[in-house]
């Protein structure tokens, strides 16, 4: 069986599985990293959103063979370490706004939020309501307005 090596939350991992198994299942079923959630497996709900080399992506939509050994994958579990703290500022904002209801979409929401802020900064501006309207992550509990408040607040702390 093929082996696949990549950087996961700051550590190198190697896993044996078929080439076409999507990264989400490698993370969840083979490596036991369960922060990224399965909400659709279709690249729609965004509950599995994680980062690859500092950009948001959906591991449900990427075969593991497309991940290179040097690729740095960050899941919610590895987010605080990227800033060398117990919690990332966005997670702190999330707590202060008591955003989560059931919590299922929250890891993906936070990973999207951080990338969305970076995206705005790359464009040389702060995050706007128009940026927030582009976020596709589904929250079936409907806590969208608290998500918006937390992202604006979290961006200031980042």
């Amino acid at each position, binding site marked *: 069986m093929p082996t696949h090596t990549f950087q996961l939350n700051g550590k190198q991992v190697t896993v044996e*599985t*078929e080439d*076409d*198994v*999507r990264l989400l*299942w490698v993370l969840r*079923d*083979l490596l*036991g990293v*369960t*922060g990224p*959630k*399965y*909400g*659709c*497996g*279709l*690249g*729609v*709900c965004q509950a599995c959103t994680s980062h690859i080399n500092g*950009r948001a*992506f*959906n591991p*449900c*939509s*990427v*075969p593991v063979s*497309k991940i290179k050994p040097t690729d740095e994958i960050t*899941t*919610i579990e590895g987010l605080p370490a990227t800033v060398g703290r117990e*919690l990332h500022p966005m*997670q702190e904002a*999330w*707590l202060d706004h*008591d*955003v*989560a*209801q*059931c*919590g*299922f*979409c929250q*890891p993906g929401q936070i990973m999207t939020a951080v990338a*969305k802020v970076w995206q705005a900064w790359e464009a040389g501006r702060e995050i706007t*309501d128009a940026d*927030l*309207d*582009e*976020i*596709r*992550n*589904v929250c*079936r*509990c*409907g*806590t*969208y*307005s*608290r998500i*918006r408040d937390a992202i604006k607040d979290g961006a200031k702390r980042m």
Partner: protein
Amino acid sequence: MAEPSGSPSGPDGASGGLDRRHFLGYLVAAPTLAVVVQYGPAAARPQAAAAPSPPQPEEIFDLGDMQNLAAAPTSGLISVQVRPDGTAAFAVPRAEVGQGMTTAVAMMIAEELDLPLDKIHVTLADARPELLMNQLTGGSNSMRSIYLPVRTAAAIARQRLVATAARQWGVPAAELTTGNGTVKHTGGRTATYGALAEAAASSKTIKVEAQLKSPSEFTVLGTPQGRIDAYDSVTGRKKFGTDLRVPGAKPTMVRRPPTINGTVVAVRNADAVRKMPGVTDIAVIQHGVAVRAETFGQCVDAIRALDVEWSPGPVARESDRTVLAKLKKAMPPMALPPLLAKTIDEEFTFAFASNSPLEPDNAIADVRSDRAEIWSCLKVPIVAQEDIARRLGLPRDAVTVHVVEGGGSFGRHLFHDAAAEAAEISQKMGKPVKLSWSRTDNFRQGRTHPMCVSRVRVAYLGSNVLAYEQRHTSTETDFGHGLGEMISATAARLPVAGNQSIAQTIFALTQSSPYNFGVTTQLLNEVPLKFSTGSMRNIYSPNVVCAQELVVDRLAAAMDKDPVEFRRKYLKDERLRAVLDRAAEAGQWGRPLPKGVAQGVGVHAEYRGAVAALVEIDCRPETVNRPIEDGVTGPRVSKALIVVDAGLVINPRGLEAQMIGGMSDAIALALTSSLHIKDGLPLEGSWDDYFYTRQWNTPLDMRVIVMPNTGNTPSGAGELAVAPAFAAVACAYARATGTMPTSFPINHGTLGFEPFPVEPSTPQSPTDGLDHTF
């Protein structure tokens, strides 16, 4: 319209055998301090209703009262423990699915025990058959049914800790105080609860009386608190069903039929599929073919490769059009209006809707020859346990059912479909399984809120409303999850005719018109079609209240009255009038808005709570037509305000969260989200088909106002906002466009997506994820 004769006065009543603040419980024999509670039968006392419309059943005795009545005899079986490490533990016999129940329970214990919130561990109890009807999470009843018993248990524990310290120190208990998990003597001596816990343990069961704090003494209850699981949620540590690791329980999925609840005739290539990478087992089950593999991805590959011949399900010939025709045919005639009266007649259609949470249905099952163990998010675990034991041919006690926290419910987890299916698969494969439904399964084969038609006729003469009739005709809703047993058990004491169906009883116990509209009747009529249905958040109310409030706006217009002014005049409930007034003031009712933008208002009382919603909707073309890839834009609710009177507020922050969620549901129900049934199957297969509210539909200005307490007991709140918010959005849309919508959601007539094929039942995951990074 019988009053509940001999209805017992509850602890919240002014009369009755128990003083308002004294309750009984027991210290039970245990290695550490443990308390169980017992209190008098709980049922709200009948409330006075205003004339001239005589009270409808819901106003004097609602669904929650029935649940309290059914739960009361076993309330004595729930316990709070204080451990030697200074923490308190309570395994609550309810499900946590995002509604904030565990946080509210921890606050109740913190309040009466004088222990910090972070030292209270609330877990979900396994199925406990001895609890009978006291282990059902539904009807927004958790706060109402456990508010007194949980506080009583905590108060007794605190008293016992004080008494233990007093005995050890040889001082009168009156000289001791408690705070922050510590007992203190006026002389300066202190002891932590942890140090006292074992000494405070009882060697035998002793009956004790507790004195509860009055709301004026509260320091925790009524203060805004973050959820106790928030840290775990934001760090990814919170464990949902498929995050659990049970030895040997490998990923399992099911290839499903192309019609709802179809069955397998033959599998033509089982041997070839069994040899696919990662696959360990294949089994034919009641409604499909199950595959167990090393990863869920390999399950998807395998179920897609299966070649299956199917037998059609019971609704294979039904589509939206045929169901609607059956509903219209079944609608009962309206009564004749009074002579000379003018009438307004309207008819509203509500499409099928999905109660699927974001977390796909899942369960872990480990079935052996003589026993079984199940893990799943279950709101009625006792019924699940009994049913699964029967299906497996095991005694009930041989089946252990663990309740797992859920990634949402919205009614879905009242049923145990995934748990029963996992058990069936595990038994057939002879191995533990971790079953997950696919996203598409959840929409196409999961339970739905059924299509319904609500007809309203209102008769008026001058400024007098003489009669209000509502005939609600719905595809059958399945209540076969324990409410049925509850109703049978309490039937003799319910203020509704004894021969009604379960659905009609629930309808009568949840619906009432809040207006003085003369002779008022609201009746349910069901068409028995075998769709897979169930309750969705707020059950009948979103549809019934939306229809009602649209007609109220029409009536106001016919009488040349402002919608808010009209409601003020005809509302019979002072609490509703108060929330409406507050909403009108804070939401600047009547403020000037551009053409195509309008306000709408909706009011509703249920679960002993009252809500007014006021929204502004933008229906201008530049808003309606703004482009969002694979998304429905349409009109946008730009401002939303909810004013809520929840009786006695436990956690204003959690209450606010439930109101915000209710508004998001309401926007979806009114504008965008529905299932289209075609030839026995919904066409929707993902979240870009089922248009639940997304960020681009979210109000930019969302505000919740929590009214000061109006009572001594909490109302239900988890479902409370959906109906009035739905009505407000619908009324605003009618005013913004000048056309009253009669079919919901308003975009149901246009199919805004390309449906996934019906076979294979689960679409393949994309491979181009790296092309869409940001």
